[in-house]
């Protein structure tokens, strides 16, 4: 063997190992999510429990601050992301614009939470008052953004009573989730509509009480079925990578299964880490929050019947829109 052949051996070995490594490399996906935000905690459970890696996925994380839901959707529309956790109404808004322009729809909801998780908290001095008593009062109600999921759900509830937000003498003010409790305590707000975590913090601080909860059926029985956490994806990416998409939704379902079977202490720790909250707060929140996903056709239909119709009635989305313009159920793995 000449000197040149001897030198070639390590090079060939290195190249073959590289080829072998590439064959087993995980598929890289770009995932955006609201962070820190308890609504998207299923992503962190999947990461911490190894669900993504078990499904052969290498996730590149793109966090967006709470309240900036539209920013994530904008990235998804610009092909800057493959998947995004934390939006649902915005998917309908964005797709509606494309539908109105006669263009191909760009995004779709592919997975969703199993609980709706909307809470309407009021300051303690409003305790005992009914909605009819409150409607004429000058209330200041906090929301994370003008197209907040919680506001749309509340509007849907008002529709069942032949009312709109214009019938209420209330001011809806936009502010971030973390600012809602200080604003409530300092009497800058009379209440807020937000998630289980902000609600728990307000209850623990004895600053307010749970006036309405979608999970309890206060906003209608069908509202209980509406998926709270929206997981959406870029349709072009999903069409080109159906297997990756299935593995992504499967990872979130695996994480949901782990949540159910794992010791509560472990989950409290993961959820506390993600939401940057004390474990005691997470413990207190546990009964009113379920992070699991599991979109079904029935849940998608409930979403459309409740949220979709509320958006249609207000003119937010095109009259030509249907449930299939918002959801892509091809990747749903537990069809009802």
């Amino acid at each position, binding site marked *: 063997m000449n000197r040149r052949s001897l030198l070639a051996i390590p090079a060939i070995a290195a190249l073959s190992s590289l080829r072998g490594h590439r064959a087993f490399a995980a598929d890289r996906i770009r995932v955006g999510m609201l962070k820190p935000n308890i609504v998207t905690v299923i992503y962190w459970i999947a990461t911490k429990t190894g669900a993504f890696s078990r499904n052969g996925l290498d996730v590149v994380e793109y966090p967006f601050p709470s309240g900036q839901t539209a920013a994530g959707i904008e990235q998804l529309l610009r092909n800057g992301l493959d998947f995004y956790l934390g939006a649902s109404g915005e998917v309908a808004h964005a797709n509606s614009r494309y539908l109105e322009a006669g263009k191909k729809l760009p995004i779709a909801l592919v997975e969703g939470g199993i609980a709706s998780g909307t809470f309407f908290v009021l300051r303690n001095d409003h305790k005992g008052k009914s909605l009819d008593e409150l409607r004429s009062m000058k209330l200041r109600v906090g929301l994370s953004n003008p197209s907040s999921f919680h506001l749309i759900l509340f509007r849907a509830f008002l529709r069942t009573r032949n009312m709109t937000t214009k019938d209420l003498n209330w001011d809806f003010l936009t*502010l971030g989730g973390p600012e809602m409790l200080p604003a409530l305590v300092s009497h800058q707000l009379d209440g807020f509509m937000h998630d289980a975590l902000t609600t728990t913090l307000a209850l623990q601080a004895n600053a307010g009480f749970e006036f309405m909860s979608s999970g309890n059926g206060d906003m209608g029985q069908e509202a209980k079925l509406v998926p709270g956490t929206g997981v959406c994806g870029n349709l072009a990416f999903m069409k080109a990578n159906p297997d990756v998409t299935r593995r992504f939704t499967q990872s979130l379902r695996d994480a949901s299964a782990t949540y159910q079977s794992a010791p509560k202490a472990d989950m409290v720790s993961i959820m506390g880490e993600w939401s940057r909250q004390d474990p005691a707060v997470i413990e207190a929140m546990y009964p009113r929050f379920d992070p699991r996903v599991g979109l079904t056709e029935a849940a998608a239909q409930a979403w459309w019947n409740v949220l979709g119709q509320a958006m249609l009635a207000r003119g937010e989305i095109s009259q030509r829109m249907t449930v299939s313009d918002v959801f892509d159920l091809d990747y749903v793995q537990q069809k009802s």
Partner: protein
Amino acid sequence: MNTIDRIGVAPAENLAAPYSRTQQDFARHVKLRNRRTRLRRFIRGMAGILSILLAWQIMSQILDLDLLLPPPLTVLRNVIVTLTVSNSQWLYGPNIYVHLSHSFLRAMTGFVLAAVVAIPLGLVLGRITTLREFMMPAIQAVYPIPGIAWIPLAILWFGLGDTAVVFVVFATVFFPLLFNAEAGARLISPTVLDAGRCFGARGFSFFFRIVLPATVPYIITGLRISLGGAWRMIVAGEMLASQDGIGYLLMESRFQFRAVDLMTAMILVALVGYATEKLIVGTIEKRTIEKWEVQPY
């Protein structure tokens, strides 16, 4: 034929009539020249604007960007629809006039408050060296804080609502007003000041007859810069702490993914901002600089 006849100059006794004719001709010439200049400027300005609009229309259509960058004709149509829409037909709460008037009130309140505080303070700092040496370092240290950074503190101090937005506008426009007034007062020519003193100007009369007129060009510049700043900041403030106004409208249309509404709101802000500038600063300018014929020193 004498020399005068040869060169065509009128005899001395007939000079008055041709002289007055020459003066009229000259005035007519100046008027015509000014009109031509205005027309030229208008044509060039319009050509510039039309070129941009044309490029925008072509780019939007060729690259199929109408959802991200709606073509100008679509935006123009939407501006007209927005200006004629009633409350009940519209997605964004009250009609556009309510949004614009609320924004205008907030912007003007912050702007006027800042002017009332900053201009006198700037004039005093500009004329009193000891006070300037005490105060300017502190003021210059606060100045780089961007207006938007005041929003969380404003909400904490004044709560959610108009006061917080007005404060943010105030914090933004205060500094250009103060620095311009201070520079104007500091840089007055000593000759002008001495001349004023020689004519017996003292105290208030010295301030109102000498210092203020000499500083006016600087103050006007400060007002012009600040008014633009007030409109920029009102949009940012209303995005966070309001439920109406043009900033709120921009935020809501962003969440609805309606780029055409976003651009409409931006155009309306630009129009109202321009009109405000012409109306307020233009009027002050006419009543001061042009009336007193003051020049910066």
